[in-house]
C-alpha cells in the first residue's frame, strides 16, 4: 500500500472513531442572545485607549508650537 493510500485509510479510521466519540451537537440556538449582547455593550462601553489620547495630545502640541508643519503633514495625508 502506498504512503498516500495508507494516510487516507488512517484518516478515514480516525474520522469514524471521532464521529462515534463526539455525537452530533444541536446547532439550533435555544434563545435570543440580542438582550445579552446589548447588556454587555452597556456594561462595557467602547472607550478610546489611553495611548490614543496621548497621541492626540502630542499631535496637537506639535501643531500648536510648529504650525508650519501643518501643510507638510496635510501634503502627506
Amino acid at each position, binding site marked *: 500500500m502506498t504512503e498516500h493510500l495508507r*494516510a487516507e485509510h*488512517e*484518516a478515514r*479510521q*480516525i*474520522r*469514524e*472513531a*471521532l*464521529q*462515534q*466519540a*463526539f*455525537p452530533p*451537537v*444541536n*446547532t*439550533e*440556538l*435555544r*434563545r*435570543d*442572545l*440580542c438582550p*445579552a*449582547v*446589548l447588556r*454587555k*455593550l452597556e456594561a*462595557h462601553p*467602547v472607550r478610546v485607549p489611553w495611548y490614543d489620547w496621548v497621541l492626540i495630545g502630542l499631535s496637537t502640541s506639535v501643531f500648536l508650537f510648529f504650525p508650519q508643519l501643518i501643510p507638510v503633514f496635510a501634503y502627506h495625508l
Partner: protein
Amino acid sequence: MDLLRRFALGEADAFETLVRQFQGEIYAWIVRIVRDPGIAEDLTVETLWRIYRARHQFRLDGNFAAWARRIATNLALDHLRRKRPEQSVLAEPAGAPQPDRLLQRETREMIQQAFRRLPAKLQIAATLALVEEQPYDEIADALGTSVGAVKLRVFRAVRILRKHLNHLGVRT
C-alpha cells in the same frame, strides 16, 4: 444607506439587526467547535460584542459572515487553550450501563481524552474537518490560513491521535 455601512458607522439599530440575523449562524459555528451549548452561547455573546468593537475594521466590500466566523473561531481557540484536557463533554444516557455499553463508553472517553490532548489549533481543524465535515475553504477562511495549511493540520492531528490511541491500547 445599506445595513453594513450603517453598522460600520456605529448605528445601534443596524447592529441589532445584524445580531438577530447572524447570531444563529455564529452560535452554530462555535457549538460545533466547543460542543457545549452553554459555553457556545457565552462565546457567541462575546463574539458579537467584539464585532461591535471592531466595526471600524470591517471592510464594506467584505463578507460579514466570514469575518464574524473568524472572530468566533479565535475566541473558540482561546477557550480550547484555556480548557483542561481531561474535561469530558459527553452526556450519558440515564440508567445502569450494560457491559458492552460500558466498554463503548470507555473507548469513547479514551478517544475524547486523546483528542483533548491535541494542540488547540489541531483540535479545531480536526473537529471541523473530520467530525463536522465542513468545507476546507471555509475552515481555512475562519482560521485565517490556507486550505493546504488546514489539510496539514488535519494530517498532523490524525498522526498524533493514532499514536495516542495506540498508546492507550485503543484499536480503531
